[in-house]
């Protein structure tokens, strides 16, 4: 009887120990609670994100969280995302935005601050190391607030993590420059000389975006920051008619004059295609051109491309752009969404993206893979002077970008009219918009 009691006691203890072990095992898997959940991700139908689909499958396999992807053409994303995120309950759990939309999304209350998840012990992977993500990318794509409203600062908050982010580097045709006895340009003065030399030799020099609206503005902005220009001064007065801004427009005009035929109709795709198909000797835009040039479906110039830093003007300053991912305020699966974002932007996820043909956002990934890709050492060297403030990511930017600059710069590249006059008119128009949106209310109230 006594033995039976002891045996029963032992069995009970064993059962209790087993239950504890199972409990401990459940706690050891941070994903288990969310297994079976389905999250919906909205992102662009671009190469980086197509490459990420394999990573997404691996995420589902590892975590049990199902992922549905809604991939759209990138300029169509915004309308769709805003419509979804404006509903009381939206369909999207993760959205990927072009960095210039972040201010608008936050101003409209459409995004969830990520701090509440980064302070959760059960959700945050201690090895995540957010400091390893390139500063310029994180500031540009993920932080809203600060003095300007779209930069770090005491009132800044984190809303997104860069994924598919980019900076600008120079890509050049090694064979053409070698044949012409030209060194790759490192400054804007050199760049302008090289463009003229190539143009005189009958070789289309540099390709660029130039289509009316967002595209031509993007082409011009690439040169504005390194030439020392800004869109606004500290009081939100537009400065797009400053000497630096006019010089950037002059550079764009020279590019259109010496580059491949049709620059005023080029969007990102056409501008890249001109370089990849061998119709231009120089390309100064996103680093994504490197992966594209290695893709035989897109490129005829694999192996002929060299990379250099974005040429320096009065300062070094490359663009920061691309995409970031965050969680809509009306998502019903925010914690699972956070785990997904953390997974794809973790060190392992970033490395996996490189293996899948995507672009890394972490410094460690760039350094670890520097021997495998020609452009990685250049990007790593470029990033410290990438300028997260190269364009103002305020809600009004879209109107300024498309309606004001997008029109004025088309005039710059399609006419011979004096650039100063064109930019003066654009500056006035920009001022009217800022006035209409109340940016000078406080100055007016104080009588400034």
């Amino acid at each position, binding site marked *: 009887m006594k033995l039976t009691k002891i045996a029963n006691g032992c069995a009970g203890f064993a059962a209790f120990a087993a239950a504890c072990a199972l409990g401990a095992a459940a706690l050891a898997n941070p994903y288990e609670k969310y297994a079976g959940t389905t999250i919906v991700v909205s992102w662009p139908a671009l190469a980086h994100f197509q490459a990420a689909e394999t990573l997404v499958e691996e995420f589902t396999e590892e975590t049990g969280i199902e992922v549905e992807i809604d991939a759209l053409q990138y300029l169509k994303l915004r*309308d769709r995302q*805003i*419509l979804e*995120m*404006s509903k009381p309950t939206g369909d999207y759990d993760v959205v990927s935005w072009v960095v210039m939309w972040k201010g*608008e*999304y936050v101003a*409209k209350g*459409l995004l969830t601050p990520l701090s509440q998840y980064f302070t959760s012990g059960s959700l945050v992977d201690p090895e995540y190391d957010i400091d390893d993500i390139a500063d310029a990318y994180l500031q540009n794509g993920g932080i809203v607030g600060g003095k300007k409203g779209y930069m770090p600062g005491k009132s800044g908050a984190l809303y997104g993590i860069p994924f598919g982010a980019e900076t600008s580097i120079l890509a050049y045709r090694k064979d053409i420059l070698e044949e012409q006895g030209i060194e790759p340009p490192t400054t804007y003065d050199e760049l302008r000389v090289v463009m003229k030399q190539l143009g005189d030799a009958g070789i289309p020099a540099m390709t660029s975006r*130039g*289509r*009316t*609206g967002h595209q031509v503005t993007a082409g011009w902005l690439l040169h504005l920051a390194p030439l020392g220009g800004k869109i606004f001064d500290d009081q939100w007065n537009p400065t797009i008619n400053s000497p630096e801004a006019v010089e950037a427009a002059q550079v764009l005009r020279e590019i259109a004059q010496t580059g*491949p*035929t*049709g*620059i*005023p*109709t080029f969007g990102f795709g*056409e501008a890249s295609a*001109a370089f990849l198909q061998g*119709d231009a000797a120089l390309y100064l835009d996103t680093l994504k051109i490197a992966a594209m040039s290695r893709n035989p479906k897109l490129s005829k110039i694999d192996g002929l491309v060299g990379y250099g830093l974005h040429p320096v003007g009065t300062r070094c300053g490359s663009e920061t752009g691309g995409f970031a991912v965050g969680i809509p305020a009306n998502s019903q699966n925010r914690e699972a969404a956070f785990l997904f974002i953390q997974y794809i932007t973790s060190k392992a996820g970033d490395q996996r993206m490189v293996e899948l043909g995507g672009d890394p956002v972490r410094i460690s990934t760039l350094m670890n893979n520097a021997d495998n890709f020609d452009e990685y050492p250049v990007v790593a060297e470029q990033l410290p002077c990438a300028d997260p403030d190269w364009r103002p990511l305020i809600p009004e930017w*879209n*109107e300024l970008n*498309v*309606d004001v600059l997008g*029109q004025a710069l*088309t*005039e710059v590249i*399609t006419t011979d009219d004096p650039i100063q006059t064109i930019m003066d008119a654009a500056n006035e128009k920009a001022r009217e918009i800022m006035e209409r949106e109340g940016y000078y209310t406080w100055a007016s109230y104080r009588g400034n």
Partner: protein
Amino acid sequence: MTDRASSDTDDLGRPGFNIRSLNPYLFIFPAVLVMVCGLVYPVVDAFYLSFYDWKIGMPFETAPFVGLSHFKRMIFDADVWESIWVTIRFGFWTILIEMVLGISLALLLEKPIRGASVFRTIFILPLMVSPVVVGLIWRYLFDARIGWINYYLGMVGIEPQVWLGDAELAFFAIVFTDIWQWTPFIFIIIIAGLQALPSEVLEASKIDGANWWQHILLVKLPMLKSIIVIALLMRLIDVFRALEVMYILTGGGPGRATELLSLHIYNRAFDTQQLGYASAISVLLILLVFGLSFAILVFSDPLKEKSDI
């Protein structure tokens, strides 16, 4: 009269309600419902929205009421007037050329000549292609770098042109594309009209000794007037509605060289998120289309002519 009177009275011959008197209203009810839901409601809603400064994504309740300020801004907005001017120029050239070409081809191919049916089938193909595809086809044909047009021009020694990147050439490109797409529409309508003309009148004119030109100018075209006016009216309305092809082909550029009013409204509404202001311009567009249609109908009165025939 007796039947009608009896149908409106009860069994005792007293006037009263008869369910059959509702028949006409029942028959037109579906059409009225569609009109109210599909036309009246959006127009009224656009008018309502034009008094608010609302951006997509913001709750509408938070949108400030701005009264007539959008309309005031519109009057002084040079971009709006430029778009109207582009639309008028576009409409003038496309409708003029399409009418001349469509009517001429219909008159030429009216008779059962050899191969006419094959030509007619090929000729109306553009009408069957979706506007988005039309835009894409011509965008690539006009492409400065890889387009066939520059390729063939190059074969005869003409320098490549930046068709969609030069203000005048881009305008020519959208006019040309529209003519390619819509001339068959005029052709079909006119040829249908020609085949419905009363043969006795045509034979009488021949017996009276009218030559080919007189036969066309003095007999056929006057009898086709009502159909021509209706075709003109439909194309005019289409010009103000045109959006998809230009959106794909040029996006309104370079600058605003090809930005028709409808495209301008689209860009304001969705590119720059000024839905209230875009609605105010839409109201102007509706008034313009309504005014032009009304004027054409009043001056030509095609339905009256038809009933006269």
